[in-house]
Structure formats: structure tokens, C-alpha cells
């Protein structure tokens, strides 16, 4: 699997205090990586280091598997918390500036981008008069100039209303389908869980966990996990005694029962009565929001 970004013990300290603490982050190509952490957890600092806007105190960064950062950074588009725009210019003028700077030959690129981010009707409005949401979208349009392979968006949904958040999600999904790997930092989980395919949780500068969407769903699925000596027979007993087919069998032969969750002891009893050796039986899973909050608070740090 190819990695777009890998950091090795990446550390940044200001005045002896570690803001980013030995982070080993791995982002695979094609992922939408949800970078979750409380405000001040170190998200922006990490993004700034990757983008080359801040120097690491320690550790190193690999982009697209290469350490030639200045060459590879051309393939990244970044927006940092407060978008840096030219306040006296319109959306179009802001983009025109960068089109010249980057030497992009296509004439229609500005129109296409304005339409893509939904700013095509801002006409002569100067960017200083934009709402925060519009500024965010203009910043994304600028980040998209030059067809980046990797987009780093710092809190892109800040200042967006629910409708804007939905539009932003759709935009990101569309970009992702075109092969752009995306990192989105956020302190709100709800908006991420709908699109992210991988997650990194940061707490006090420490990357406490990294997992993908499937792993997250496995962790949060509420069910009774049962490991027995004879899976097939156990299933027949469960179907027979509890009249349910709401179970499945994992590749390692463990059974997951999705009903009768508060009847663990009954299930156990019936299995034992059926002459089955129960190696383990327990309820697993919790709700998504709760799981993230615990991770962010550092409680699940085992």
C-alpha cells in the first residue's frame, strides 16, 4: 500500500513544551483521513509542519514515499485555519493571482473552480466581505489550483451552516473520487464519520490511535461475541432456543449475536446445556460519539 504521508517521531516544541509529541502518522493514498482532536491538541501545528510552514523540532516527514520534500510539496494543497486571502480582491481576482503565479495555461480553470466550490455568483464582492464559510470555500479553490494529489484542510467546516457542511462533504467526496487523498482536521466527530475512511486521534500532541472505517465499525458494533469449540453446533442452538438469525460468523470462527444483548447469561446457559464449551462470551461495542470522546480525553489509552 502506498502512503501519501508518513511521519516518523515528528515533534514540535515551543519553549520546551511539546505541542506535537513523537507522532507517527500514516495516511494511505485514496483515503479521507479524519484528524480528530480537541482545540489545541496540535492538529494545526502538525499540518503546518507537513506543509512546510513550520520546522519540526525533531523527527521527519515522508511525502509520497519520498524525502525530497520541496519537490513533493508541490503536490499538496493546504488550507490553514484562517484562510489567507487578499482582502481587497474578489474571489476571481484572488484565483487569478495564483493562476499567474503557478503558470496555469487553461483559461476556464477559474470558472470551473468557482463553480465547484459554489462561489460563481459572488461577482464584485471583495473577499474581506465574505462570510467565514465563503472564505473557507475560496481557500479550498485556491488549494485545488495545480491539481494536487493530497489536500490538507484544517477545520474546513468552521463557520459553515448545516447546509454548507453538507455541500462541503459532497465536494470532498467528489474530489476524493477523482483520486485526491484528503486530510480533514476537526474537533467535531459527527461531520467526519459520514465521509472519512481512516482516522487519527490526537490528544495533547500525542497521536493516541489510528484506525480505518471498518475497524471503527467493528469496535462500535454492539453485539455478543462468542468463542466456542464447535461454532456450527452453537449456531444451531442459538437459532433453535432463541429463534433469531441476527448473527454472523467471523473468519476466525467467532460468532457475533446482534440480538438478545442483555441476555448474555441465558445464551451462555443454553450453550453449556447443549454440551458446548464456551471459551469466551461478552458484550462488545459502544456508540461512536462516546468512543471518540473517550479517545480524545485519553481514557482509552490502553
Amino acid at each position: 500500500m502506498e502512503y501519501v504521508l508518513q511521519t516518523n517521531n515528528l515533534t514540535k516544541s515551543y519553549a520546551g513544551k511539546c505541542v506535537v509529541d513523537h507522532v507517527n502518522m500514516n495516511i494511505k493514498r485514496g483515503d479521507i483521513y479524519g484528524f480528530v482532536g480537541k482545540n489545541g491538541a496540535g492538529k494545526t501545528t502538525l499540518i503546518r509542519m507537513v506543509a512546510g510552514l513550520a520546522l519540526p523540532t525533531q523527527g521527519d516527514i515522508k511525502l509520497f514515499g519520498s524525502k525530497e520534500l520541496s519537490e513533493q510539496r508541490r503536490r499538496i494543497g493546504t488550507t490553514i485555519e484562517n484562510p489567507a486571502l487578499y482582502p481587497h480582491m474578489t474571489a476571481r481576482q484572488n484565483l487569478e493571482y495564483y493562476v499567474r503565479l503557478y503558470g496555469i495555461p487553461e483559461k476556464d480553470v477559474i470558472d470551473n473552480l468557482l463553480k465547484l466550490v459554489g462561489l460563481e455568483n459572488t461577482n464584485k464582492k471583495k473577499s474581506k466581505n465574505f462570510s467565514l464559510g465563503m472564505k473557507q470555500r475560496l481557500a479550498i479553490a485556491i488549494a485545488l489550483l495545480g491539481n494536487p494529489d493530497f489536500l490538507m484542510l484544517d477545520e474546513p467546516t468552521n463557520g459553515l451552516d448545516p447546509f454548507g457542511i453538507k455541500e462541503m462533504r459532497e465536494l470532498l467526496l467528489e474530489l476524493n473520487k477523482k483520486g485526491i487523498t484528503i486530510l480533514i482536521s476537526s474537533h467535531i466527530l459527527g461531520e467526519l464519520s459520514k465521509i472519512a475512511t481512516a482516522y487519527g486521534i490526537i490528544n495533547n500532541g500525542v497521536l493516541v490511535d489510528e484506525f480505518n472505517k471498518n475497524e471503527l465499525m467493528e469496535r462500535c458494533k454492539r453485539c455478543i461475541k462468542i468463542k466456542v469449540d464447535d461454532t456450527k453446533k452453537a449456531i444451531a442452538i442459538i437459532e433453535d432456543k432463541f429463534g433469531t438469525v441476527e448473527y454472523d460468523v467471523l473468519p476466525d470462527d467467532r460468532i457475533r449475536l446482534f440480538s438478545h444483548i442483555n441476555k448474555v447469561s441465558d445464551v451462555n446457559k443454553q450453550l453449556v446445556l447443549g454440551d458446548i464449551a464456551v471459551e469466551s462470551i461478552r458484550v462488545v461495542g459502544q456508540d461512536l460519539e462516546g468512543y471518540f470522546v473517550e479517545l480524545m480525553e485519553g481514557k482509552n489509552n490502553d
Partner: protein
Amino acid sequence: MVVGILILIIVILSFRLYLYRRQLSSIRKQVEFIRENETNMELSITIHQKEWNSLIVSLNKLLKDIKRCKYVTLNQENLFKQTITSVSHDLRTPLTSASGYIQMLYKGGLDEEKQKEYIQIIQNRINSVTVMLNQLFEYTRLESNVYELDYERIDLNGIVCDTISMFYDELVQSKIEPDIQIEEGPVWVFGDSLAWIRIIENIISNAIKYGENWIGILLQKEDNGIYLRISNRTSTIEQKDVEYIFERFYTTDLSKTKKSTGLGLAIAKEFAIRMGGTIEAELNDDIFAISIRMKSA
């Protein structure tokens, strides 16, 4: 004087020549970078001159075409992988269950009634595997465009009635009272009768699987078109599910065992669109409905 002008021209031309050579070498470097790295990047240019500009624009068009091809292949590959994972998971569960019952039958010591019951269960599990495999096969064929539809003028009214009657037993078993409102005479559409049967079958069997004690089937003529609506009462579908309902392998509640492959509605949609119709899903309070509109023939 003349010499002065000539020297000036030479100086200007040499400077231009220098710029052109620099531009050429920059383009070469960019092309190499794009070739060596799997990237979305396109060529950029520093000289602002019409000919150069249009050359780079055309080269970028070429790059865009290559990218498009790449994503099509990539998406197909991903779809294939996803299909394999999802199918093997869906097949494992009923097969493990069937083989559990076979084991209990082997052990013996069961009275005749229990034996019959177990054989029935095994039969059901095997049937569900067959249904899944058929759906998968059908969907793959539809996706790869090898599925030829036979167009003819058909009476949708008849097809709807026939298909509903096939579900009679299941409806009775699930204690579902169907509320059927259809036109008196024939309702003509242009399409493939088998495809229509599959559409209606898939939607109704979905409605039975996830519905609760009520199913509504409505077929009526609209201004130069037909309108078919199959709805059911539900407590499991949520508003957020509605927009994904036609996506393959989408089943509503992730925590529940899948009772189906999640291909049924995807197949229905493919067929409906192939025959030039529109299909949409909506949820109003606890009523989930799928409606199809098509021109009448």
C-alpha cells in the same frame, strides 16, 4: 544606425531563444515528474504566448484523458474487491448455519418432526445462498453491459398482478395485508417484461423483508406516462438511509445481520434506468416508498 538596430534585434531574439530553451527544459522535467509519480498534476508554463499556451493546454487535455481512464479502472477494481469481500461475508453465515443443522441431524436422536424442521431450515439457508448468487450474477451482468433487453409493448398491469400473486404465500406468512390500487384496463409501456418482473419482485421482496404489516401498491396512468409506487411501513429505515438506498451492498442497519445482499434495489434501479424510466425513494414519517415513472407506450 542600421548596425545598432540589427544588434538590438539579435539581442532580443537571443534572449527569446534563451527563454524558449528554458521553457522546453522545464516542460521536459515536468513530464518526467508526472511520468514517474502517480500524480494528478498537469503542466504549467511561464511564457505567456499564444502558441506556447495552446500547446500546453492540448498536452494537459491528453493528461486529463489518461487520468480519466485510470480512475475508471481504479473504481472498477475497488468495486470488484468490495464485491468479493461483501459476498464472501454474506455467504459464510447461512452456510455455517446450514452445516450446523446437518451436524445435528447426523448425531441423530431427534424425533421426526424436529428432523423435518431442521431439513426445512437447511433448505431455507441454501435458498438464500442461491438468491444471493443469482442477484450477484445478474448485477455483474448489468454492470458490464452484456445484458441485452428485449423491448416490446407490454401490459404493466398484468405484470404487477402476476408478480404480486407470486408473493401470496409470503404475504400471508408475514401477516401483511397488501393495499393494492391499480388501473382497470391494461397499462401499456415499452420495455422488457423480464426486467419489469425483476424490478417489481425486488422491490416487493424488500418491502416484505423490512416492512411491518402493511404494503401499498399503486399503479396509475399519468399524463402520457405511468406511475408505479410500492410502499411499506417501516421503523428501521431512517431519513439518512434514503439517499443511499439504491447503492449496491447498502443495507440499512449496520449492526443487524444482513438479510440480503443489498443488491436488489440496485438491480431494480439499473433496469428502470436502462428502460428509460426514473426511480426514486422517499420516507414520509413511517412510510417508505419507491416510485417509478416511465413513458407509456
